[in-house]
């Protein structure tokens, strides 16, 4: 039953939360990070290599953790968040309280639950996995199908849970196409004779060097790209999967038999934080993420001390999350300076005079 005071409480110790905290640290504010999992790092703990240059997720995670000096509380289950005169108080299951004038929500995203797309057979046929499952397999160095054999043919299905009105998310997750290509390249590096097919609707490769990845996958790794959205699947007696779709560029029905299917799942908003802060309902956009996507932010009132950063404001890559976290951290700094009438004396000395609001 402890009560702790900070300048800023950050909910979520993923890339955005860690980056924001390191920036706030550098300005001398006291920050704490509340993380619901056992270890910090957010989704960095689930990835193996990051696009576009195949950097190690583990290394980036270490780097980000080292850059911040804030206190990180793990295995925290938040029970309630209440507003006080001086800011916010977050209470967890053990009745510990974390209070601060500024609250930064960096809760990230939730991968789409592929069981919802029943026609894709995830959970019904053995050899279906998601991109998240595949990353796990990379980390465990265990690339085999359900029978334990090394696959010879794999299909990647794009746009699972994105751009799909039937699962309630019409937005594009923007990062699954490049994830698929990255994973295809990784697979080919590890299993050179593997045949890989990517079934896509459109290829959304907007980031820097993404197109290079695409070309590399085609030329160097001979990944085949087929334009046609997967419609139905079935299983052979030997548990290989038959895919049924239209090759739209040819305009003809097509079939493909593979050993495994990887579903590139989209990035969905994580609504669990909404239960704790019901009055921020109006800050949720029509797609379920926070914020309205407007460039003109002048009209936004920043008086109330509540900030959002990272994938919880929309599907983002790690670079985009950290960039946004930096921007939002700057706004938090401005806010705190105003609220606490803080002055810096000297950048080297880092003495602070604080008046409470």
């Amino acid at each position, binding site marked *: 039953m402890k009560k702790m005071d900070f300048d800023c409480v950050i909910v979520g110790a993923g890339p955005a939360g860690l980056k924001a905290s390191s920036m706030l640290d550098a300005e001398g504010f006291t920050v704490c990070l509340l993380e619901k999992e056992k270890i910090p790092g957010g989704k960095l703990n689930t990835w193996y290599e990051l696009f576009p240059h195949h950097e190690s997720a583990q290394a980036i995670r270490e780097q980000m953790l080292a850059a911040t000096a804030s206190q990180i509380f793990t295995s925290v289950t938040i029970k309630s968040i209440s507003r006080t005169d001086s800011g916010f108080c977050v209470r967890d299951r053990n009745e510990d309280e974390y209070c601060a004038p500024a609250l930064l929500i960096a809760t990230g995203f939730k991968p789409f639950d592929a069981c919802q797309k029943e*026609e894709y057979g995830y959970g019904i046929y053995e050899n279906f996995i998601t991109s998240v499952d595949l990353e796990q397999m990379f980390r465990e160095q265990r690339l085999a199908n359900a029978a334990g054999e090394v696959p010879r043919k794999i299909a990647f299905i794009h*746009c699972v849970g994105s*751009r*799909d*009105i*039937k699962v309630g998310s019409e937005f594009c997750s923007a990062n699954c196409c490049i994830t698929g290509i990255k994973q295809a390249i990784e697979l080919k590096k590890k299993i050179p004779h593997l045949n890989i097919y990517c079934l896509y*609707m*459109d290829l959304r490769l907007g980031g820097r060097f993404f197109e290079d990845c695409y070309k590399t996958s085609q030329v160097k790794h001979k990944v085949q790209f087929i*334009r*046609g*959205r*997967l*419609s*139905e699947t079935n299983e052979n007696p030997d548990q290989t999967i038959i895919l*049924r*779709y*239209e*090759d*739209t560029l040819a*305009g*003809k*029905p097509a079939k493909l038999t593979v050993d495994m299917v990887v579903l590139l799942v989209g990035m969905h908003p994580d609504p669990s934080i909404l239960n704790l802060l019901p009055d921020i309902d109006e800050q949720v956009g029509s797609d379920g993420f926070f914020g309205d996507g407007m460039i003109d932010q002048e009209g936004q009132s920043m008086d109330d001390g509540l900030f959002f950063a990272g994938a919880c404001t929309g599907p983002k890559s790690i670079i985009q999350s950290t960039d946004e976290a930096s921007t939002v951290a700057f706004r938090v700094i401005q806010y705190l300076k105003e609220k606490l009438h803080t002055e810096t004396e000297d950048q080297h000395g880092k003495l602070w005079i604080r008046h409470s609001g």
Partner: protein
Amino acid sequence: MANFGFGIQDDLMIDHDRLSPAYEAVLEEVPSIAACISCGSCSGTCVAFFQSGAGFRKLVMLLKNGSYDQLQQALDYCQFCGKCSLVCPRGINTRRAILEMRKQFKTQGHDIV
């Protein structure tokens, strides 16, 4: 005036300069048909596509391009089961669109403008 050689073989080309009145007519009844992104899920699940080669995506394409003869033939194959509307990611009312197309061609016997 350049025509880029389009005058040589008319039936091999699609002339997007020409309007498709049947498409406009169907669009009025079923506005959602404009949201088609040609993903092909409808054809992939179509009961008739794998046997006859005509799925909803192709119908929309033929309708937009004004290929009415092929469209009329392809329309006859539809068994009206409704699976296309169940899988369409854009939520298009495909069966209504097919019914409209069937009615357009039964009553009007369209010609391109």
